[in-house]
Structure formats: C-alpha cells, structure tokens
C-alpha cells in the first residue's frame, strides 16, 4: 500500500510533542536568519533549548559561545584570502605595489611560514584591532570602519523603527480581524514585501518621491549647505544635542527613503509573525476567561493577549536587526548612504582585499553580537523556557 508512506498519525503526535515539549518559538528564531526569509521550518539545534538550566548559567554559556563563533568567522575570512589564487601580498597591496613593499607585506603576513602560523599572525592582528591599510586611500581600515558604522547603525535603527511600528500594528489588526479583507490584504502585502528586491524598491521610491514629487533628497545623509557639528557621528543625535533643528529636519529627510526601503522585509516578517503569534495566544483559555468576564475586545487584546503574543516577535525583531546590518549593502549603494555597506561594496569593486577582509570581519562580528544579545534577551523575557 503505497499510500501509507507518509505515516500520518505518527507525525501528528510527534508534532504535538514538539510544540509543547520545547520552546516552539525558537524554531522561528533560528531559521529566520539570512536566506529563507519566510520559512519557519525545522527544529532548532539543542543549544537553543535551555530547559532546566538556570538563567545565569545560560547567559554565561551563551556569551562564551561568541568566542568559538568569532574564531570560526575569522578562519573563514582568513581562508578566503589564503585560497584565492595569486600572491596574497600582491592582492592586498594592489597592482601598483613596489617589490620592496611587497616583501614587507609578505613578512608582515608571514607568507613564508606555514598556514597555521599565518593564521596565528592574522588572529594576533585582529585582537589588536589592526586590520591593515586600504589600498586606495592609505587609511587605517579600522578607522574607516569606525567612521562609517554609526551611519549604518542609524539607518538600521530607523528602518527597524518603521518596521516595528507598522509591522506590529498590521499584525495585531490582522489577528483581531482574522479572515477579513484587511487581514487578507495585509498578508498578501507582506508576501509581496518579502518578495521585493530592496534595491529596486529604493530606486522606485527615488523615482516617485525624489524625482517625481521632490519631497525627499535623492542620496546622502546631509545637504551640502547644512551645518552640523559632528560629535557622535549619529547625525540625528548630533542634531538634537546641538539643538540644530534645521539640520535635524534635513537629516530626517535624508533618512526617510532609505529607511523605508530597508524596512520592507523586516516589516513583512514582523507583521506575519505578530499575526500568527497573536492568533495562537487568542485561542488560549485565559483569553476566553477574560472575554467571559466581560472585558472589551480592546482590553482583551492589548492588556492580555499582546503581552504573550509579542514574545516571539521580539526575537524576530532582534534577528532582523542583525540581517539589516548586512543587508544594508544594497540599500546604502542605491542611496549613496556613507555607511559600512557602501564602503564594503566599493572595496569589492576596487578589489581592495584589506577592505573586504576587515569589513567582512567587522560586520560578521556585529551580526554575531546582535544575535547573542537577542538570544539572551529572549530567555530573559520568556521565563517559560527556563522554568521547563
């Protein structure tokens, strides 16, 4: 009997066991990084289950996990250059390098030594935050990154703000009015949102709002004529601290379009996640109790359901923030936003391997850190996991 191949009954029981027996939400959290933006599939690795382990122990263990992960990342970054055909010294210095500087670079990288010694030297430089010099501008890579990271973080925060604001609202309303036209539209809209190429959306926004309507500037962070005393390099903060309202207006104007473009994917994912999580919470008995005792629907949703419904959403928000840091490359390129992403892209087009190496290492490190913080935060917020 070919039809029994699926062995359905066994699967169903397994499903019930898995959802109730382990933190179901972390299924979502793990699989949402990077590529399958919509997929909420598969089980989590065991290290996400912290059942029975006391909280401080978990926090320490999870924090320590950063070290092997970063070591792994550094091995990948190191190997990418090592396995690239050609002389690494020449790759790093560019074609115009003199024989003398090449020899110095070979000495510096330890190219005459075996590979593991080279990696050791690489690691030693990383720990000292020495990422070398760029080929074209002869600036220290670490300094260039530090100058540009605030712009990227500012853009990501602005995008995340928009994504949370609209995503959570859409999700709540869709869940409250399940199967209504609004629900249908917003869910189709969120599917379109995750399917849209961000760089294209950015160009369309420029076409409509900058070129067509003239509401927003086409590119950059600040108009040329605007004065702003730069303190923190977060221009919004700088403008507020110096009470420079004219500059603040200008900065926000520049921020609007790139933030909108960058926010679509996280917004769509947050909306879907909020909706499904709220629907799940609304089925629970305590919500029935709240309704039975005569509370208004608004009170049931905002006072009772939302608190539990938002817990899995927070993980998604955190993970998406990490994705934004990397995904800003395309958006920053489209809007000429002077952040790490655009700089890294320029490094790629100029084949500046110092920039590529240092930039990749730093962005990946930021990504790992954000994910770690999210994991810990999630465990702190959701006490149900640790109680089990």
């Amino acid at each position, binding site marked *: 009997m*070919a039809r029994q191949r*699926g*062995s359905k009954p*066994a*699967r169903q029981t*397994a*499903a019930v066991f*898995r959802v109730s027996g382990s933190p179901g939400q972390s299924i*979502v959290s*793990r*699989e949402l*990084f*990077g*590529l*399958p933006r*919509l*997929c909420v*599939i*598969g*089980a989590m*690795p065991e290290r996400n289950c912290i059942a029975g382990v006391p909280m401080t122990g978990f926090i320490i263990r999870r924090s320590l996990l950063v070290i*092997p*992960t970063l070591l*792994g*990342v550094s*091995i*990948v970054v190191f190997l*990418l250059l090592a*396995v690239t055909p050609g002389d690494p010294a020449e790759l790093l210095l560019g074609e115009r390098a003199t024989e003398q500087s090449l020899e110095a670079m070979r000495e510096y990288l330890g190219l005459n030594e075996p590979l593991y010694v080279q990696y050791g030297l690489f690691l030693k430089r990383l720990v000292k935050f020495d990422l070398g010099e760029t080929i074209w501008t002869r600036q220290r890579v670490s300094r260039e990154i530090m100058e540009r990271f605030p712009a990227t973080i500012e853009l990501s925060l602005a995008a995340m703000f928009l994504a949370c604001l609209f995503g959570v609202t859409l999700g709540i309303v869709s869940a409250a009015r399940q199967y209504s036209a609004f629900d249908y539209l917003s869910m189709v809209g969120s*599917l*379109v949102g*995750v*399917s*849209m*190429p*961000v*760089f*294209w959306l950015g*160009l*369309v926004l*420029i*076409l409509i709002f900058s*070129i067509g309507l003239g509401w927003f500037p086409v590119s950059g962070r600040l108009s040329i004529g605007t004065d702003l005393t730069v303190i923190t390099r977060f221009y919004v903060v700088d403008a507020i601290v110096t009470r420079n309202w004219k500059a603040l207006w200008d900065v926000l104007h520049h921020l609007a379009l790139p933030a909108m473009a960058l926010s679509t994917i996280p917004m769509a994912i947050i909306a*879907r*996640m909020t909706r*499904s999580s709220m629907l799940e919470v609304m089925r629970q008995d305590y919500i029935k109790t709240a309704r039975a005792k005569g509370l208004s629907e608004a009170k049931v949703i905002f006072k009772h359901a939302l608190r539990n419904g938002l817990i899995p959403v927070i993980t998604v928000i955190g993970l998406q923030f990490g*994705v934004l*840091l*990397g995904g800003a*490359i*395309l958006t920053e390129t489209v809007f000429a936003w002077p952040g790490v992403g655009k700089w*890294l*892209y320029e490094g*790629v*087009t100029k*084949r500046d391997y110092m920039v*590529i190496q240092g930039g*990749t290492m730093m962005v*990946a490190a930021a*990504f790992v850190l954000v994910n770690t913080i999210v994991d810990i935060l999630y465990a702190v917020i959701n006490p149900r996991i640790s109680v089990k």
Partner: protein
Amino acid sequence: MIRLLNRLTDPETRHPFFDQLEKLVRNRTGLAGLIIITFFVFCAFFAPLISPHNPIENALYEQLKPPVWAPGGSAKNILGTDDLGRDILSRLIYGARVSLMVGVVSVGIAVLLGTFLGSIAGSLRGWPDNLIMRIMDIILAFPGILLAIVIVAYLGPGLKNAMIAIGVISIPHFARIVRASVMEEMEKDYVLAARAAGCRRRRILFNAVLPNCLAPIIVQASLGFGAAILDAAGLSFLGLGAQPPIPEWGAMIAMGRSMILRAWWVMTFPGIAILLGVLGFNLLGDGLRDAMDPRLRD
C-alpha cells in the same frame, strides 16, 4: 493512455504524489504560486518563440523608446527599449531562463550538499554531527548576502560564481532541516524493524528514512528558490553576477539606474519581473507547507 490516466487519477490506486498535488491545488496560495511559476517556466522554455525581438541585438535607431502606452511609444516594443535599443520585453522573457537556471543550480547545490551533510549528522550523531553542525553555524554567523558578495569578490564576478556563492550560503538551512527530520525519523519503529530485519545503516537511511523527510526539504527548496533569485538579482545589480550582455533582471535594473531620469521604464519592469517570480515561489512554498506538512505552519 486513458487507462493510465484513470489509474493516475483514481484516489484508490494513484501515487501519493497526486494526493499532495490535489491538496496543493485546493489551497489557494499554492495554486496562485503554481500558476505564476508555470507562466515563468513557459516563458523560459519558449523564449525564442514568444519573444518579439532578439534580446542581445542592439538597434541603435531605437534607443530608449518608451512603452506602448506612453507618448512616443510604439507597438513594436511593447515595454520600450533600453539605451542600446534592445527590446525590454524580449530581455525579460529571456531573463526568466537566467533566473530559473540560477534557482535550479544554486538550490540544487544547497539541497544535495545540505541533505548529504544533514543526514550524516542526524544519523551518525557524535563527533561528525558536532563538526558538521558547527561548520554550518559558522556559515550562518555571516549575514547571507554579505557572505555571497565576499565569496564572489574572491572567486571573481560572473554568473557561475554567483550561483556557487548563493548555493553555499543556503547549505546550512537544508542541513539543519534534514538533520532534525532524520533524527526524528530514526526514533520510529519502522527503523527499528528495518534494523531488526538486518538492513545496513546506509540502506535504512536512503531507502526508508530520507523519503520520509522529503516534505520539509521540498518546502524549503521552494522558498530557497525564491530567495536565490532575489540574491542573484542583488549580486547582478552590484555587477558581481551576470555580466553584459546576458539579459539578467538584476543587471537590467543596474543599467536602468543610470538613466532613471530619462527612461523610467528601463529599471521598472525588470523589478516587477523579479517581484512576481519570487512571489510565485514564496506562495508555492507556503502552499506546499500547508498541504504537505501541517505542523510546520507558522
């Protein structure tokens, strides 16, 4: 022929594949996805027959013609032409070939290697499991598109390297899913029965366990296909993927970007094509998930 058709459609005797297909078609999301994808596959297969012009032939007297409904447009180039006078509609139709190829190759790499690594990890456990999954964790420690860009930066730009890079960054997703499913299936009685009957481990894995893990792999493959198209378009937009004159949608957007003031249509239509194609695979993936594996619903 008719007997075969009857045999295939009769609910009692047909292959379980058709049960799944029926469920998929009954599910509106899945059906919508299936229709979109069929349309793109049709375009890709019959591109030489249905496209009105040659996609890479320059026509210097036809530069930057607007679409047919805009002032100055003609029915000769329904969606207008680019700065080399190439017909945009024809390039879009041929672009479906490129995008489908990118999806097939990169998802193929990811499925094959991911399933292989995941099933080894899930069935052997112990140190191979640890080694494989830690390597997967390291790949996941990079933001996906960043790793793809960096891999292409080292390998050199081009469609082939872009497909490899996208395949590599998707391996961990498949490996994790397969590992989890294999571990779950390995606990079941039929595996015990097979072992008691004297089957070798490899035979149990490939003949009994893996076929039962197919559902999540297929769902992930569909979603991964859409993501691969999106990432490939992004790489091509940055000039790291398909090189001119290949009619690739992302590369077409990059070309249209420089003439956004003069000719909005050059960058607009390829974006819509990407959006529709990726949407099709996302819809199909969602539909498949609902049809094949209800427990995976979000």
